[in-house]
């Protein structure tokens, strides 16, 4: 019978390994103690030798893949055996490392450098943290690389694999398991994967639930309305707390002349309106669309701001995937505009419109909200002049955009009516130093004050 070969523990402290090279290929005969692969662990490159004999039917994690302990790397069995049940049928959809489909809120999984979120209720699981930070060692590349084992692997039938206990919890709490990343074998959702998504008494069956609802108001005062935490609210609380506690933030603010950007936008929208076929709504471009593109160009110019921190290395992304914060009824989500540097402003505008619409309808897929490389948060439409945003881990920076202000400005020797726009960059100081952040903002200012460059693509 075919069996799944898993990532073995090759060093006492190893939590994941990167396959450096396979010494057997699919179809090769494997004997006991044959060298299967070399695995780069946290300590050294180790030999992975076979405990069994058979034929290597399928390699699930190609060279370069980073795989958590116990996750499948290959299937061993007899030639011709049906391995579809073991995940050997079709490869799961290509998934960049770390795209473990986290919570529906769906920022990418935990930041690689941050300590794994302590399991709240599940039995102590010091080693394997739930939404696995898989990305650590693999260099991010623009094209989605090979599948990573920790990603949820939809079965051919699309059935969600979850333990019976998880299903009971989901029924009791009216939770959807779709999109929850399972950290158990074959992506099985196990109780601790719901940590942070469900109310306290998850696995400790002690029915001490009332304790959690203890006193909500001092005696004699009217009690507040109790609004149970949604999964999204819990994820926001967990991730942003983690960000503020573990990421050393600092802030750089610029105040730019927004007149050129304003006029360009007016002109674009007027042209779009007159070009639209009769009776059809015209496309529109927002400040944010222009700024998204401007940031993408600036990030290409200053790639150090398009980077993330890990314990071992700084990962400078070769893709510019911009997360755009969107307010929704329950909180906020951050859908990602992929490869924004290669897209035109109109294309970005249409994509953001689609993403935001589906975000509000809760129709976004987890992978559409994960693995950004930089974020933009805009509160201009709420009349905010300027603010500082919390970094969206594992990204290295986030730009907070205020409203375009009409105010008197000095031009030459005269005070004239003008437009200003304040933007604040929050930087992870482990990745982005002050001068680097300033360089990025200088590039951004230059683009925004000469915005035809935005249209020309940099």
């Amino acid at each position, binding site marked *: 019978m075919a069996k799944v070969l898993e990532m073995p523990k090759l060093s006492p402290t190893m939590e994941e390994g990167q396959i450096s090279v396979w010494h057997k290929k699919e179809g090769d005969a494997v004997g006991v103690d044959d060298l299967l692969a070399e695995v780069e662990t946290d300590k050294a490159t180790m030999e992975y030798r076979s405990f069994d004999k058979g034929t290597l039917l399928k390699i699930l994690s190609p060279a370069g893949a980073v795989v958590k302990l*116990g996750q499948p790397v290959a299937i061993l069995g007899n030639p011709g055996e049906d391995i579809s049940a073991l995940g050997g049928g079709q490869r799961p959809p290509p998934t960049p490392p770390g795209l473990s489909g986290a919570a529906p809120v769906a920022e990418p999984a935990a930041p690689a450098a941050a300590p794994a979120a302590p399991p709240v209720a599940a*039995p102590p699981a010091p080693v394997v943290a739930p939404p696995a930070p898989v990305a650590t060692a693999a260099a991010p590349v623009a094209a989605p690389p090979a599948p990573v084992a920790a990603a949820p692997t939809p079965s051919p039938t699309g059935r969600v694999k979850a333990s019976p*206990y998880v299903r*009971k919890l989901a029924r009791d709490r009216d939770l959807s398991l779709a999109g929850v990343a399972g950290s*158990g074998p074959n992506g099985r959702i196990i*109780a*601790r994967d719901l940590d942070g998504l469900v109310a306290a008494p998850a696995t*400790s069956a002690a029915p001490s639930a009332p304790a959690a609802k203890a006193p909500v108001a001092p005696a004699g005062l009217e009690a507040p309305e109790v609004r149970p935490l949604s999964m999204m609210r819990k994820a926001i609380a967990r991730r942003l707390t983690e960000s503020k506690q573990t990421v050393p933030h600092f802030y750089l603010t610029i105040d730019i002349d927004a007149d050129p950007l304003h006029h360009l936008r007016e002109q674009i929208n007027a042209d779009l309106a007159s070009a639209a076929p009769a009776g059809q709504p015209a496309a529109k471009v927002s400040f944010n669309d222009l700024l998204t593109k401007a940031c993408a160009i600036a990030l290409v110019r200053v790639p150090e701001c398009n980077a993330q921190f890990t314990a071992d290395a700084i990962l400078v992304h070769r893709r510019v995937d911009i997360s755009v914060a969107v307010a929704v009824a329950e909180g906020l989500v951050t859908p990602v505009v992929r490869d924004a540097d290669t897209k035109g402003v109109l294309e970005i505008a249409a994509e953001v419109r689609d993403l935001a619409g589906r975000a509000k309808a809760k129709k976004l897929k987890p992978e559409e909200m994960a693995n950004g490389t930089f974020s933009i948060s805009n509160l201009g439409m709420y009349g905010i002049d300027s603010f500082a945003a919390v970094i969206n881990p594992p990204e290295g920076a986030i730009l907070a955009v205020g409203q375009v202000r009409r105010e008197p400005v000095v031009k030459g020797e005269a005070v004239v009516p003008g437009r200003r726009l304040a933007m604040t960059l929050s930087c992870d100081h482990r990745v982005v130093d002050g001068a680097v952040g300033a360089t990025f903002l200088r590039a951004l200012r230059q683009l925004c004050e000469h915005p035809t460059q935005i249209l020309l693509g940099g």
Partner: protein
Amino acid sequence: MTVLRYREAVKAAMVEEMERDSRVFLIGEEVGHYQGAYKVSEGMLERFGERRVIDTPITESGFSGVSIGAAMVGLRPIVEFMTFNFSAVAFDQILNNAAKLRQMSGGQLTVPIVFRAPNGSAKQVGSQHSHAMEHFYAHIPGLKVLAPATPADAKGLLKTAIRDDNPVLFMESETLYNIKGEVSDDPELLVPMGLASVVREGKDVTIVAWSRLVHAALDAAKVLAAEGIEAEVIDVRSLRPLDEETIIKSVQKTHRAVVTGEGWPYGGVGAEIADRIQRLAFDDLDAPVLRAMTLDFPMPYNAKLEQHVIPGAARILEKVRAVTYQR
């Protein structure tokens, strides 16, 4: 309370019950003049005489059959096998007479008999002398099977077995005979059958064990506690009837279960317990029920291989780590 060794506790139960009820007698190879192959019946011949402590030839089928007949007509025999391995010779008597006659006679006959002996592996006694026989007997309706892990339970359960009107197989262990424990002196303190004992409380995983493996499970639980995993250890004590309520209640709390005992994994008591758990606690399971049993081989004689094949704390730890998704 007195501190007794397991073998002394077994003897105390027999002595008290023979004092209490003149119908009770002990029969088997070497139980009398040799004082018991494992010295369990030491001094009993002197105390009760040759009519009640009976040495037999090496004929398990014969003296088992004679004893079943004695039970049918009103006596209450305790049959000692030198080890349970040799009960295989008497299997037909136990399966077809002891287990069946009450039902086949429409209740006109009862067979109040206890078969007792050390069971399971010892140290290098070879493939044919290392069997875990509880699985064979627990399979059979009409029999009761007990496997106590401590001196107190050995005494209390054996007394219950002797007073029961049905055939009971009482599984001792060569490797447990020397362990000591507090035992009640009260001749009326009986441990009921069909009642498991939670010997360690925990919240993260349930380890269901019997006989020697209860001690291995407690050792494993100590290691796990140091890692922050609190294991609940259940000594089932009584394999048939089985106290499923205690097991299920525990699994509903911990959501994970490992079953451990001696004996091959194919079928058997461990499989039965796993079946009950998946059936009765399905919605509470966060992981498949795993078993830590003897490996599926005839017992090797080589000491290292033997230790590899029989289950112990290491195998329990391995299974617990799997059901708690540790690596």
